[in-house]
């Protein structure tokens, strides 16, 4: 449908077996990246911070993309993140309404970039969850929890149906009233 910039991957990896440790513990991580190569790289980045293992003495056992189970159902997503601002690290909780988790994550990255000037490398997603309607915290998402929602569109955006028909000058002023 819509092409997502961010894909969700499940990466499973472990340290390489050595003489002292025949069966090292296997770790699994779910993360977001634009492609599989970056996902593996990000996996090692996080694992390095948590365990004493690097890409050079470890192996990725599996990497699978996780797809949305119900892409036609609107859900409220809560995203807990840790980001680095110019002055230090902060935690944040953000809510988004979207049909897919990838879409919500994309919204989150673009919002963080616009509102806080934080780019992709400086954001770590701690946790994501679909929030049931009752537990949503932000007014911005709660205002859409109305089964009889009704609002008018303010401005009618007049634009040609294809970019080919775009012209610099128009014969008459467009009427913007819906």
């Amino acid at each position, binding site marked *: 449908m819509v092409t997502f910039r961010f894909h969700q991957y499940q990466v499973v990896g472990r340290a390489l077996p050595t003489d002292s440790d025949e069966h090292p513990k296997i770790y699994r991580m779910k993360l977001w990246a634009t492609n599989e190569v970056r996902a593996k790289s990000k996996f090692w980045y996080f694992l390095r911070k948590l365990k004493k293992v690097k890409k050079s003495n470890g192996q990725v056992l599996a990497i699978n993309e996780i797809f949305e189970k119900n892409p036609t159902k*609107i859900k409220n997503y809560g995203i807990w993140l840790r980001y680095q601002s110019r002055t230090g690290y902060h935690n944040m909780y953000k809510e988004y309404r979207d049909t897919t988790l990838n879409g919500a994550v994309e919204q989150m990255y673009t919002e963080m970039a616009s509102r806080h000037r934080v780019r992709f490398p400086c954001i770590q997603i701690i946790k994501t969850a679909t929030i049931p309607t009752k537990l949503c915290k932000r007014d911005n998402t709660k205002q*859409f929890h109305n089964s009889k929602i*009704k*609002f008018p569109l303010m401005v009618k955006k007049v634009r040609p149906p294809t970019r080919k028909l775009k012209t610099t000058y128009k014969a008459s002023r467009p009427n913007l009233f819906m």
Partner: protein
Amino acid sequence: NSSILIPSPPLSSISNTITHKQTPKMPFKRYVEIGRVALVNYGKDYGKLVVIVDVVDQNRALVDAPDMVRGQMNFKRLTLTDITIDIPRVPKKKTLIEAMEKADVKNKWESSSWGRKLIVQKRRASLNDFDRFKLMLAKIKRSGVIKQELAKLKKENAS
């Protein structure tokens, strides 16, 4: 950061007293609501009639039509029509089709002036050269008849 969603009309002057029961008069006739039929005016599904089935957020709606997979669409791609149908929030495809039949969306659309204009536009765009020739002859014939009548009326007026 709660954005202003429902618009309120401008505050009345002090002399007007608005009671709680009175709904202020808004200049908008077409609302985004569940069951509103809209025309897609941009993109891959250009020209299709779709039904707004739910609202995702300020800019997007969940949109459905009998011949497409239910998906989200930006309001910028939709032009609202006057037609609404009676559906619950996010209905099954079958319920949607039944409701569309009941509200007779297709006929209402094709008999509305907007719908008729679009049909004529499509027909004109799909003419081949022979059709255009026939059209030219028909136009000449029609204008000939009109001019004859006009000449008659002129003569009557002059005399």
